[in-house]
């Protein structure tokens, strides 16, 4: 029987344990931040990247949105934290869609996260 399961295990795990949700605490060389929203009534996301010693020392997000968006933000932060700053340069949206089994009609939601990351990378670039 075809299991109609809208959320895969990764989504569920991230939803239960959004370890990177919240504001960044602590002192960093630079704290980059972006805020993106779908519409006045729609989903929104705040994203922080804290840079120290040439790496991404901390990633944080806040979001009001569906479980896939929450999970996408969490997965992204886990992946980038403690990695090179170049990680901020681009989001592999299709890999994320696959990892989170995002249904086609919802893939648009992930563009929000892509926009948030782009805005941070732009800030980084201007300041660099």
């Amino acid at each position, binding site marked *: 029987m075809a299991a109609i399961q809208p959320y895969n295990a990764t989504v569920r795990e991230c939803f239960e344990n959004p370890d990177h949700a919240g*504001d960044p605490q602590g002192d960093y060389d630079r704290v980059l931040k972006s805020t993106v929203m779908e519409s006045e009534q729609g989903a929104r*996301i705040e994203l922080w990247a804290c840079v120290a010693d040439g790496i991404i020392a901390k990633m944080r997000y806040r979001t*009001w949105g569906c*479980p896939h968006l929450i999970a996408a933000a969490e997965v992204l932060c886990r992946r980038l934290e403690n990695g090179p700053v170049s990680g901020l340069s681009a989001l592999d949206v299709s890999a994320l869609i696959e990892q989170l089994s995002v249904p086609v009609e919802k893939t648009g939601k992930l563009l929000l996260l892509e926009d948030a990351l782009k805005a941070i990378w732009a800030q980084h670039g201007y300041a660099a």
Partner: protein
Amino acid sequence: MSNKAVYLDYAATTPVDPRVIEIMQTCLSLDGHFANPASIHAKGRQSAALVSDARMRLANLLNTQPECLIWTSGATESNNLAIQGAARARAHRGRHLITMPTEHKAVIDTFKALEKEGFEVSWINPGADGLLSLDTLENELRADTQLVSVMHVNNETGVIQDISGIGLLCREQGVVFHTDAAQSVGKLDIDLANLPVDLLSLTAHKFYGPQGIGALYIADRPGNGIVPIMFGGNQERRLRPGTLPVHLIAGAGLAATIAASRLNDDTRHLQVMRDRLWDGIKDIEGLTRNGPDGNCYAGILNVSVDGVEGESLMLGMEPVCVASGSACNSTSGESSYVLRALGRNDRQAQSAVRFSFGHATTSDDIDMAIARYRWTVNHLRAIAPRSMAVS
């Protein structure tokens, strides 16, 4: 998941009563009552007897005559048959119809289809309490008004309309009155011998009967004729053709009898469950109850909450099964038009959760629902941008 699921979505559909399951089973196998009730042989006559017994049982629940009941596949079909059928039967007298935007989709979409056919529909908004004002209705009634359709109990909020008052107004003006009673039959006391209702829709799976069977009540009054929407046989006074599904009808009939016998006990139980749930969450900041305190069916509690996204709220509620907005639209992704008509904004409407209870609901179920709801609201608020915070 299924084992530990807590089902609080009785307004969407109910499980079938064990006694009903039993009678359905006696209708399925070769040695049972499965024959076509239209067949004149012995087994057909047995089926016909079961069907007529079930019709009597349903009539007894509603205090009416079995001849006034037409079996259909459910309230959706009953609504379509009643509304299309009455509008077209009376089109030569006038083409003005009245309903409300807070009706079920099966009513709304049928009226929209009639609008395309050239009928004029007045859509009356409810007050903030969800109720139709009789004064407003009186003002909207015109010489060419032929049909008014107002539901009995709202499926999202539980709001109970004054169908007696509405019906009286319609009678005075010679207008046919239809009510979608999918959410009230078997749950509220409905006495059709003393209610000015011309057409009433119901469906068995909302009162512990099987899915796929409903009925339309057609009051035996001059001028209350309808034309069919399907054609092809003598069944159901030629108003609804097709082989009568014996096991479904027998099940619906027994479910009606059982519902009548437990109506009062159930109502008390539902009130206790609803109040326990409300007491357990009402202190949450930014919580709104959708639907008034009074004039509401006890089996439904609908709440909205600020600062929380609806789909994530639904996931957080697991394994408690609740509805976001109307179950009938819940895969459509739109926020509830019923709640928006009550004055909720999009954000509030999309965060709405409908808890609905049944006679198997326990205090433990309610406590689990309270715990999950509180946890989820806190959890999601902690994740959300501070700009979304509840002030």
